[in-house]
């Protein structure tokens, strides 16, 4: 089980909010400093390692840019959303951000609640209210990449790309 203090972001959080276009050509550290600057200035100084992001409908809609990496670099431990945009989900797998869909999660958590996520039985519990929700399982082959630090180490191990 992993737990994290929650930050609630609502529906349709797009990749321009997570990784603004003007930062596309900047370093990943600079990109991580720009997360949510338009909709929630100052958040990057408040989030702590291991915290959880709670999203609503279609989290991560938009671009193929590595927005999932920015969230991971901010210290986000895991993401739970009602639905996750398919492209953002791919990047979550590949950059090793634990990201799962969880119907009902947006209503079940108020900001600051602690989410206790168990991948073993695909459930999440709100430590304050005791509410328990089912998490949609991530296919095992994708979960392995997601939890194994993403796809770069896998490609390096196969001799496809140079090691970092």
């Amino acid at each position, binding site marked *: 089980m992993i737990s994290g203090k929650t930050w609630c972001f609502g529906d349709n959080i797009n990749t321009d909010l997570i990784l603004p276009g003007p930062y*596309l*050509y900047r370093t990943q550290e600079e990109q991580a400093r720009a997360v949510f600057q338009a909709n929630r200035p100052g958040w990057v100084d408040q989030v702590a390692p291991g915290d959880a992001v709670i999203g609503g409908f279609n989290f991560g809609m938009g671009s*193929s840019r*590595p927005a999932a990496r920015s969230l991971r670099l901010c210290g986000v431990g895991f993401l739970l959303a009602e639905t996750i945009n398919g492209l953002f989900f*791919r990047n979550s797998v*590949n950059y090793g951000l634990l990201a799962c869909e969880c119907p009902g999660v947006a209503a079940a958590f108020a900001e600051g609640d602690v989410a206790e996520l168990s991948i073993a039985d695909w459930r999440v519990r709100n430590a304050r209210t005791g509410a328990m929700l089912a998490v949609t399982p991530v296919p095992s082959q994708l979960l392995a990449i997601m939890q194994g630090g993403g796809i770069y180490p896998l490609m390096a191990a196969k001799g496809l*790309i*140079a090691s970092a």
Partner: protein
Amino acid sequence: MGMTITEKILARASGAALVVPGEVAVVEVDTAVLLDLSFLPEGWREVLKVHDPSRIAIVFDHLVPAATVQAATCHKTGREFAAKFGIERLHDVGPDQGISHAVIAEHGYAVPGTVLVNADSHTCGAGAFNCAARGVGGPDMLWAVTTGSAWFRVGETVRYDFTGALRPGVTAKDLFLYIAGKYGAHVNQNIEYGGPGMSGLSINARRTLATMGAEFSAEFTIFEPDDVLVSYMRDRTTRPFEPVLPDPDARYADRRTIDLGALEPLVALPDAVVNQSVPVSEVAGTRIDQAFIGSCANGTLDDLALAAQVVRGRKVARGTRFIVTPGTQSIFRAALKAGYIETLLEAGAVVTPATCGACIGGHMGVLGPDEVCITASTRNFKGRMGDPSARIYMASPATVAASALAGRIAGAEEVFA
């Protein structure tokens, strides 16, 4: 059990008799398209081997010509990568460069019935060619060029059947805005377009609609094949291809019929694309600082022709910037020969080289604080084209051109009356 077009292509590419929603399909990638952004040092790694250089194309598009040292460095890395592995399809700054999705269309790289991946979300535009094309992330692209494969979660499909024909002055962008306003996002779903009205849509119109599939958050957006498509592809590729129709008993999450003749010009309100569509009249008169026509969705020759038709013999309003970005340098040349560029310049427009440019808030049309823009491009998210306080309305090239003349949001009805 019957399959939709997307399911049939994914099944074919994965060597399976059947794929069904819910499973993960591992498929053979026919074409992998890398961009200048793919070579950002933050994501790119030195590739030790590629699966098949002939399956790879490289197109520089996001910041072209290089606007920053960082962009120039990406271009350099891309050229070196192409040289190292003998990748012939390199669309460098020059005559055959353009926005990747428009270059793919021009050169017939998206082969009907196959799978194409590209590191940009609007890759789904190649769905106009009956190709299962999807935008993926940078790491997916590294995986695709080194292994020749990709994985996809198979989603359910929503089918749209078109009847009738668009009226003059009503465009594929308005059709998109209608669907976006009525049905909203299609997260984790595929979209399939067909029906008796589909063949009346030009390839460019299909590209606009398919490209905007990214804004539906759809997995794959795909058109049925027809004679128009087959002849378009035969003119552009010598490769054999086998287009895919849906099975008669394909299972759809929903089937929706749209009468194209009943549609009117629409505008999306700022900050989001879907569920934001209103008739032009509802926002007419809103003052604008900038009008933009371009991007993978609206930088086609037809879009430039439409813009030229609207502004011919008239002048852009004083204090309004009208920026037009052709989708490719080849479109730029064709528009020059057809006289569209001269008409636009005479009216006061600024025409830029082909690039993602203003659409991504990259260069050549970035918005300042509190500015208002009306755009015929792909996205109007908060902060998309520059400062987060800028307001971005989205509409067809005809509506954008008419607004540039007025200095306020305006319809182009009188031109088409």
